[in-house]
C-alpha cells in the first residue's frame, strides 16, 4: 500500500520475527497530521465540486449581490415557486454527488487506488477498515493497520461485505405491503405516510443491533422527540456473550462493561467453553493478541489450555484440550477456582476471598462428587492451578456453545477465578480503556413483553425474526404491531412481516461511528455514492420526523455526528486545530482516542448469592447451536464467499450439519451424511450428521446462521437449516438472553441421505510425516537454524532475478479462521462455484486451509495448514505444460499465462500439492450480476485478470501487488523494502501467521522465518536425515507447530475416513 514512510521503515526494522507491530490502547492520543494514503470522501467531493458548498452542517452560502427588493413580477414568481415548493416537499435532501471522470479530478489518477478509512459494521467489535477504491468503486476491504482494535487484520465477514455492497438482491426501492405483497413505493410517500402515523402516536419503538457509537444516542433523541420513553429502544445481538459478560460485570462491579482482553501479556490462558477466536467479543483483536501470546521467543511462549464440550475453532487451537460433559462448564470453573483457592500461594483477601470461601463451602459436596462425574481427577485441577499460579495467567469463560441458563453464572465464576489469579488490570482491563457493551442486557425479553403495545416499530439493521428462537414468538409479535418499518441494508426475515421494507445504506455507503474501547472513537464514512435507491436509516428517521413536524435540529445523520464529535475533539485534546480540520483528519485516519481511566475494580461486590444453585449435570444427549464463525447469526449468509469458505472444523460449505462424536454415531448406527431427526421439547428438525472427533459423546452440535427459507437471498435460500426452532423459550435468569445451548435432545435415524458439501473429504493425515511437523519445546531449544535451500539435485541453476519472492506460514499461529481464503478470493476475483460443484471437488479457492485430525477420536489433536501454490523452484507443473502456459519467473514466482493455456490440466496432475484450479465452467459475471451467484463486474479487482472457461489458475502471490510495489520502488530509485508489499492473505491474517518478502535479502522477515529452527518445506522429506522428499524446493516454507505440552496423544485409534 504505497511507499512506506521513514517511520514505517523504522518500525519494520524494529519488528521481531514474524511479529507484526502491536498497537496499544495505552498509547495516548497523538496530535496527528493526516497521512498521504487515506482520503476523506467529503474532502475529495469538496474539491471536485469546486465552489459548490458541501452539505456539511447544512451551510448554504448566499450568492453575493442578490437583490432582495421585490417587485410585482418577482413577487408572482416567488409566490409561485414557494407554493410549488411547499406542495412538493418540505425537506431538502442533502446534495450527494457522484462525479464522472469527464475531467480527471485532482488526487484521482485512473489505475491508482484511493483508500478510505472507515469502520467495519459487520459486528459490534468496531474494527477499523481501509476501503480500496478504484475509479470510485470499492473493490476491497482491508483492516486499517493503524487501528488499535484489529491492527490491519480483518475477519472473513468484514471483508465479504464488498459482495454485500454490490449484491444484486439488495432492495432497489422502498417497498410497502399490500396484503401479502410488497410493492414499490416512492420515498416521498413513505415519509408522508409514516410522518402522519408518527404524528398520531407516541407508542413508537426502535429495535436495532449492537453499536458502541453515537447511533443509539441518536435513536434515543428520536424517541424523545416523538414522545416515546427511552426504554422503547431495544438493542439486541444474537451473540449473547456481550450481554453475559456485561451483565456479570454489572453484578460484580456495578457497571455493564466488558473487560478489554490483552492475552498477549500473559503466559498461560485457561479457557472454559470459550470461543473468542470464532466470534467472542472482538475476534480479530483476540486473534492478534493470541498470536503475540503464542510467539516463541527464547524458549518462552504462551500456553493455552481449553476445557470444552464441543470442538470449537478456539479449542482446536489450544495446546491442551480437555473434553468435558455438556453443561459441566460451571462445575469445571468452580473446581478450578477451588484448586486455585486452596493453593497455598494464592494471596487474595477481601470480598473475593470471602466469596470464594462461601461458594466453595456451599457447593462442597457437589464439587466433591463432580471429579468422578467429569472423570477429571482432582490432581489434574491442582496441577493446572499450580501452573496458573506460577505463571502469569488468566481465565476466559463462556461462548456461544454455552448460551444456556448458566451463561452469566459462568461469567461470574470466571470473574472470581480471574480475581484469584490477579488477572484484572493485568490482562483484563476494566479500569483502563474498557470495552463498552454494544447492547443492553435483557432488551429482547423486554421487547417481547412490551412490543405488543407498540403502534409503530422501526427494525433497523437487525433480524430478530430469524435470529431468535422461534419459541420466543418474535415473528408473531411483529405481525401484531400495526406498523412495522424494516430498514435493512440487506433484505431479511423482518421484511416478510413488515408494513414497509426500506432499503438502508450499506456500511460502505453510510456515516457512523463506533467506540469499541472507551475513549477510542472510530469513524465510518461513505466511500461510494449509494448504489441503489437506498437511504441511511438515521436519515429516514429524520425525514419522517420532519414530515410529522417534529424536526430534530440536524439536516442529516452526518450533521448529527459532526455535532457530537465536537465532544470527541474536546476529550481527545486535539484543540490546536479548528474543529473542521480535526473532523477531516479523523476521516483520513479513521479513528482517534485517548485512554480513559475509571475506578470500577475497587467497587467489587459480593455476587455469591447469584451462584447459590447449580444446575445438576444432566445425562443424555444435549444440543448446542453455536454461532457460525463465518456468518455469525446469519447476517453474512447471503455472501457467497463466506458460504464457500467452509467451516473451520468440519470444512462444510453451504450446509448445516449435526456434528456427533464418531463413537456415538457408531453406537447409534449412524453414518456420515445420514439424515437424522433431532427432537426436543420445542420442535423437530431433520439434519444430516457429520462425524466430528473431539466432541463429547453426549453432545450434538448444530450451528446456526444458515437455513434462511425466506427471500433473503437466493444464496442463503435453502442453504442449510435453522436449528433455532429446537429451543423452547428459556432464558438466562441473569442476562435474560435466550437459551440456545445445552437442551436435551433425542436423535432418530431416518432413511434419508444428504451429502454435505465438505471441502475436505479425508480428515486423517494417514501417518505421513512431511506434511505437518511438530516440535516440542525441549527439542526446539537445541534446534539449529535451517538451510532449506540446501537440497542436492542435478537440476540446472535457474535464472535469478533481482528478488526471489517467498512466503513463510507459521502453523503454530494459524487458527484456521479462513480470513485469508476470503481475502484471496476477493483480491483475485476467484469465483464461488456453489454447493453442487463443491461436492464434486471443483472449488476455485487459491488458498485452502487443510485440517487434520490425529490420534484418539474422543480427544484428537487438530492441525490447520493453509496451502496455496508453493511456487516451487523445481516446479513439477512447469516441465509438463506443452505450451509454456506456466513458467518460472526469474523472481521465483511460478507464473501462469492464462492466454496461453489450452487446458490440458497436466500441470494440475503433476502438482503434488494439488493447489491448481481449473475453470470447469464459465463463471458468470453478467451485467451487474444478474444472479446472486454471478460476479458483479463492479466488485471485481481491476488489477487481476478474470479467467475464462478452460484455463488453469492458481495463487500468483498477488503478483499485481508485487508489480505495484516494484513500480513505486523504481520511482524512488531503490529496492522494494521488506514489508512494503503484502499479499492479500498475509495482510488480513488475524494471527500474523503469514510472512511474505524477498528471500535474497537475508535480513527480511521471510528469510529469517525460512532459517528458523522450526522451518520446513511441505513434502520436503526429512532433510536432517538426508531425505529431501520431492525436491520441489518450494518458495513457501512452513514453521512447525509447537507442542507446548509434548505429544500427549498416543497414536492408536485412527479417526474415520469418508
Amino acid at each position, binding site marked *: 500500500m504505497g511507499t512506506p514512510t521513514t517511520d514505517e521503515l523504522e518500525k519494520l526494522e524494529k519488528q521481531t520475527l514474524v511479529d507484526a507491530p502491536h498497537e496499544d490502547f495505552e498509547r495516548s492520543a497523538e496530535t496527528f497530521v493526516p497521512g498521504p494514503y487515506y482520503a476523506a470522501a467529503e474532502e475529495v467531493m469538496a474539491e471536485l465540486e469546486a465552489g459548490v458548498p458541501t452539505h456539511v452542517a447544512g451551510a448554504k452560502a448566499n450568492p453575493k449581490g442578490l437583490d432582495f427588493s421585490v417587485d410585482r413580477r418577482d413577487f408572482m414568481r416567488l409566490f409561485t415557486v414557494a407554493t410549488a415548493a411547499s406542495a412538493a416537499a418540505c425537506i431538502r435532501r442533502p446534495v450527494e454527488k457522484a462525479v464522472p471522470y469527464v475531467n480527471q479530478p485532482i488526487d484521482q489518477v485512473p489505475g491508482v487506488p484511493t483508500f478510505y478509512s472507515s469502520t467495519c459494521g459487520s459486528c459490534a467489535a468496531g474494527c477499523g477498515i481501509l476501503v480500496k477504491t478504484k475509479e470510485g468503486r470499492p473493490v476491497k476491504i482491508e483492516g486499517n493497520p493503524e487501528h488499535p482494535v484489529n491492527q490491519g487484520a480483518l475477519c472473513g465477514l468484514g471483508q465479504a461485505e464488498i459482495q454485500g455492497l454490490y449484491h444484486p438482491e439488495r432492495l432497489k426501492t422502498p417497498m410497502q405491503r399490500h396484503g401479502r405483497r410488497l410493492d414499490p413505493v416512492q420515498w416521498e410517500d413513505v415519509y408522508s405516510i409514516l410522518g402522519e402515523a408518527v404524528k398520531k402516536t407516541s407508542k413508537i419503538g426502535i429495535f436495532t443491533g449492537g453499536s458502541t457509537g453515537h447511533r443509539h444516542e441518536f435513536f434515543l433523541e428520536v424517541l424523545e422527540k416523538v414522545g416515546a420513553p427511552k426504554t422503547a429502544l431495544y438493542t439486541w445481538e444474537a451473540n449473547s456473550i456481550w450481554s453475559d459478560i456485561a451483565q456479570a460485570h454489572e453484578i460484580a462491579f456495578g457497571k455493564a462493561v466488558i473487560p478489554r482482553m490483552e492475552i498477549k501479556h500473559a503466559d498461560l490462558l485457561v479457557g472454559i467453553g470459550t470461543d473468542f477466536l470464532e466470534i467472542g467479543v472482538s475476534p480479530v483483536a483476540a486473534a492478534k493478541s493470541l498470536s503475540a501470546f503464542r510467539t516463541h521467543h527464547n524458549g518462552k511462549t504462551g500456553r493455552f489450555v481449553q476445557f470444552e464440550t464441543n470442538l470449537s475453532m478456539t479449542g482446536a487451537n489450544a495446546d491442551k484440550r480437555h473434553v468435558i460433559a455438556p453443561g459441566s462448564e460451571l462445575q469445571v470453573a468452580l473446581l478450578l477456582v477451588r484448586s486455585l483457592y486452596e493453593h497455598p500461594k494464592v494471596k487474595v483477601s477481601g470480598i473475593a476471598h470471602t466469596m470464594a470461601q462461601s461458594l466453595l463451602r456451599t457447593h462442597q459436596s457437589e464439587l466433591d462428587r463432580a471429579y468422578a462425574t467429569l472423570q477429571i481427577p482432582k490432581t489434574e485441577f491442582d496441577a493446572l492451578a499450580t501452573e496458573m499460579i506460577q505463571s502469569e495467567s488468566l481465565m476466559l469463560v463462556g461462548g456461544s456453545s454455552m448460551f444456556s441458563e448458566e451463561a452469566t453464572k459462568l461469567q461470574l465464576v470466571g470473574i472470581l477465578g480471574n480475581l484469584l489469579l490477579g488477572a484484572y488490570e493485568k490482562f483484563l482491563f476494566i479500569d483502563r480503556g474498557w470495552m463498552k457493551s454494544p447492547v443492553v442486557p435483557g432488551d429482547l425479553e423486554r421487547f417481547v413483553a412490551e412490543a405488543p403495545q407498540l403502534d409503530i416499530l422501526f427494525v433497523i439493521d437487525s433480524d430478530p425474526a430469524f435470529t431468535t428462537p422461534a419459541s420466543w414468538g418474535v415473528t408473531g409479535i411483529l405481525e401484531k404491531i400495526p406498523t412495522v418499518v424494516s430498514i435493512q441494508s440487506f433484505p431479511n426475515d423482518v421484511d416478510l412481516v413488515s408494513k414497509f421494507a426500506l432499503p438502508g445504506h450499506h456500511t460502505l455507503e453510510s456515516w457512523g461511528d463506533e467506540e469499541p474501547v472507551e475513549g477510542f472513537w472510530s469513524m465510518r464514512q461513505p466511500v461510494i455514492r449509494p448504489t441503489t435507491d437506498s437511504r441511511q436509516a438515521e436519515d429516514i428517521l429524520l425525514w419522517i420526523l420532519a414530515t410529522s413536524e417534529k424536526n430534530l435540529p440536524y439536516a442529516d445523520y452526518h450533521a448529527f455526528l459532526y455535532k457530537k464529535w465536537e465532544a470527541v475533539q474536546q476529550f481527545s485534546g486535539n484543540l490546536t486545530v479548528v474543529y473542521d480540520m480535526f473532523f477531516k483528519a479523523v476521516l483520513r485516519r479513521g479513528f482517534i482516542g485517548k485512554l480513559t481511566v475509571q475506578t470500577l475494580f475497587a467497587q467489587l461486590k459480593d455476587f455469591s448469592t447469584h451462584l447459590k444453585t447449580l444446575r445438576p449435570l444432566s445425562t443424555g444427549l444435549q444440543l448446542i447451536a453455536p454461532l457460525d464463525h463465518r456468518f455469525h447469526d446469519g447476517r453474512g449468509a447471503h455472501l457467497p464467499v463466506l458460504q464457500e469458505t467452509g467451516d473451520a472444523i468440519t470444512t462444510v460449505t453451504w450446509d448445516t450439519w449435526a456434528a456427533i462424536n464418531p463413537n456415538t454415531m457408531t453406537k447409534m448406527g449412524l453414518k456420515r451424511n445420514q439424515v437424522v431427526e433431532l427432537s426436543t421439547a420445542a420442535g423437530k428438525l431433520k439434519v444430516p450428521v457429520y462425524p466430528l472427533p473431539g466432541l463429547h459423546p453426549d453432545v450434538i452440535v448444530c450451528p446456526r446462521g444458515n437455513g434462511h427459507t425466506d427471500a433473503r437471498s437466493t444464496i442463503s435460500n435453502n442453504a442449510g437449516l435453522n436449528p433455532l426452532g429446537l429451543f423452547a423459550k428459556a432464558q438466562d435468569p441473569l442476562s435474560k438472553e435466550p437459551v440456545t445451548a445445552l437442551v436435551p435432545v433425542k436423535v432418530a435415524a431416518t432413511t434419508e441421505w444428504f451429502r454435505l458439501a465438505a471441502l475436505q473429504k479425508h480428515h486423517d493425515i*494417514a501417518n505421513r510425516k512431511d506434511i505437518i511437523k511438530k516440535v516440542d519445546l525441549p527439542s526446539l531449544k537445541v534446534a539449529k537454524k535451517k538451510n532449506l535451500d540446501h537440497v542436492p539435485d542435478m537440476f540446472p541453476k535457474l535464472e535469478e532475478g533481482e528478488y526471489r519472492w517467498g512466503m513463510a506460514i507459521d502453523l503454530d499461529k494459524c487458527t484456521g479462521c479462513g480470513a485469508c481464503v476470503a481475502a484471496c478470493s476477493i483480491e483475485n476475483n476467484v469465483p464461488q462455484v456453489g454447493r453442487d460443484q463443491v461436492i464434486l471437488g471443483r472449488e476455485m479457492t487459491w488458498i485452502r486451509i487443510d485440517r*487434520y485430525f490425529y490420534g484418539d477420536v474422543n480427544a484428537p489433536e487438530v492441525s490447520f495448514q493453509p496451502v496455496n501454490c508453493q511456487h516451487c523452484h523445481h516446479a513439477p507443473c512447469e516441465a509438463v*505444460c506443452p505450451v509454456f502456459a506456466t513458467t518460472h519467473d526469474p523472481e521465483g514466482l511460478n507464473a501462469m499465462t492464462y492466454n496461453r493455456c*489450452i487446458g490440458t490440466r497436466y500441470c*494440475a496432475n503433476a502438482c*503434488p*500439492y494439488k493447489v491448481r484450479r*481449473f475453470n470447469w465452467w464459465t463463471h458468470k459475471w453478467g451485467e451487474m450480476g444478474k444472479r446472486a451467484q454471478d460476479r458483479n463486474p463492479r466488485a471485481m479487482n481491476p488489477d487481476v485478470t478474470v479467467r475464462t472457461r478452460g484455463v488453469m489458475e492458481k495463487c500468483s502471490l498477488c503478483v499485481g501487488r508485487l508489480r505495484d510495489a516494484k513500480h513505486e520502488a523504481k520511482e524512488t530509485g531503490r529496492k522494494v523494502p521488506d514489508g512494503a508489499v503484502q499479499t492479500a492473505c498475509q495482510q488480513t491474517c488475524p494471527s500474523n501467521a503469514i510472512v511474505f518478502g524477498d528471500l535474497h535479502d537475508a535480513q527480511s522477515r521471510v528469510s529469517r522465518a525460512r532459517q528458523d529452527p522450526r522451518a520446513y518445506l511441505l513434502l520436503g522429506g526429512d532433510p536432517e536425515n538426508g531425505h529431501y522428499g*520431492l525436491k520441489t524446493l518450494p518458495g513457501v516454507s512452513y514453521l512447525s507447530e509447537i507442542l507446548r505440552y509434548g505429544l500427549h496423544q498416543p497414536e492408536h485409534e485412527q479417526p474415520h475416513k469418508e
Partner: protein
Amino acid sequence: MSDLVAWDKTISDVNEGILVGLKKPHPSFYVALSISVLCLIIGAICWAIEITYGMGTTGLNNPVYWGVLITDFVFWVGIGHAGTLISAILFLFRAKWRNSINRSAEAMTVFAVITAGLFPLIHVGRVWVAAYWMLPLPNTNNVWVNFRSPLMWDVFAISTYLTVSLLFWYMGLVPDLASMRDRVTGYKRIVFNFMSFGWTGSLRQWHHYEAGYGFLAALATPLVLSVHSIVSWDFAMSMQPGWHTTIFPPYFVAGAILSGCAMVYTLVLPLRWMFRLEGFIRKEHLDCLLKLTLLTSTIVAYAYGIEFFVAWYSGNEYEWAIFQKRAVGPYAFYFWVMVACNCIFPMAFWSRRLRANTAVCFIVCLLVNVGMWFERYNIIVSSLVEDFLPSAWGHYEPTWIEMGITLGSFGWFFTWLLIFCRFFPLVSMSELKLIMPKPLRKKSEGH
C-alpha cells in the same frame, strides 16, 4: 507355418474369393455400419455439449483432472499398436501367418490412431486454441512449444507413427489396388489406376517394391516400441505416485500389444464371416494370434506383479499407499476386473482345444479389451484420487458425456473400418499368394 495350414483354397482362388465379398457384402454389414454411425452421432453430440458448456460437463474435478477421456486415448493408441507389430515386426521375422491378417491389422492401426488423436483435442479445456498452440508454429511472441513436456512428445510420436503406418498400409495396398483395377471398367478403372500408381506387376516393380516394403518395415519397427513408451511417459514423467515409475514403457508396450492382438481377433472373426473370407484367414492363423496374445498376457501379468514389488521395495510411502489402495481401496473393483481380464482369462489359451473354440476365444479377446481399458482407467484414476496430501483426496465418477464420447469413439473407429472393408480387400491378396499352395493343374484347363 504355411505348411501347417490346412488350406482348402489355392492362390488361383484368391482374387476371386476376396473381391467377391466387396460386390455384395452380407446384410449384417449394413446393420453394423448403421450402429457405428449412430454411436458416432451420439459421441459428436456429447463433444458438442462439452465444448459448449465446458469441461464441467465431465466428472473430472480436483484432484482427478484426467479420467475416461485420457483412458480412451491410451486405449486407442494401444489398439493402434498391434497392426504395425504384426505387419512390420512379424514381416521382418518372416512369420508367414501374418500375411492373412496384416491388412486388417494395419487398417485397425490407422483408424485406431486417428481415433486416439482426437482425444487430446476432446479433453483439453480450450480446443479452439489447442490445435494451434500445440504446433511449433513461428509467432510474434517468440513463444515456442515446450519440448520438455511429454504431451509435446506425444504430438510428435503419434503423428510420426500415424504417417509411417499410413505409408506402410498404403504401400501394401498398391498391388491389390492394381488387381482391382484390372477387374473393373469405366471411371472406376481410372480411379484405381491412379490409386495404384500404374502398377503393372513387372519384375522390376516387384523388386523395388519388396526393397521399399522391407525398408518401411524396418523403419516402423522402432516406432512400435517408441509410441507407447512415449505415451507411458505422459504418466511416468510426472511425480504422481503410481505413475512415476521406470517400468512404465515396457509395461505399456506389452499391454498395447496384448490389447492390439485381442482387438485384431475380435475384429477379424466377424469380418471374416461378413466378407466370406473363411477360406483365406484360416483357424491356424488365428491360433498364432492367440498364442501371441497369451504371451503378452503373461508379460503384462509379470509387469503388474513387478509394479507392486517395486512400489513396496522402494520404501516410498506415497507409492506404496497408492498400490495398496489399488488392490483393496475404493477402486479395487477396477483393479480386479483388470487382473481377471488381462491375466486370468487369457490363460484359457494354453489349451489347444479352447483356442480352437472361436466362441470362447472371441469372448476372452473381448474381455481382454475390456481389461485393457480398465487397466488404463485404473492407472489414471486410482493414482490421482489419493496422492500426497490427504486433504486434497477426492473421488471421480464419469458422467454420461464422457461415456457418450467413449461410445462415439467406437462409432468413429468402426465407421471408418467398415467403410474401408466395403471398398478395399481386407486380406492382402498379393501377400496371401506367397503363402498359399499353388493350384493343382486341372486337366480341362491346361494351356
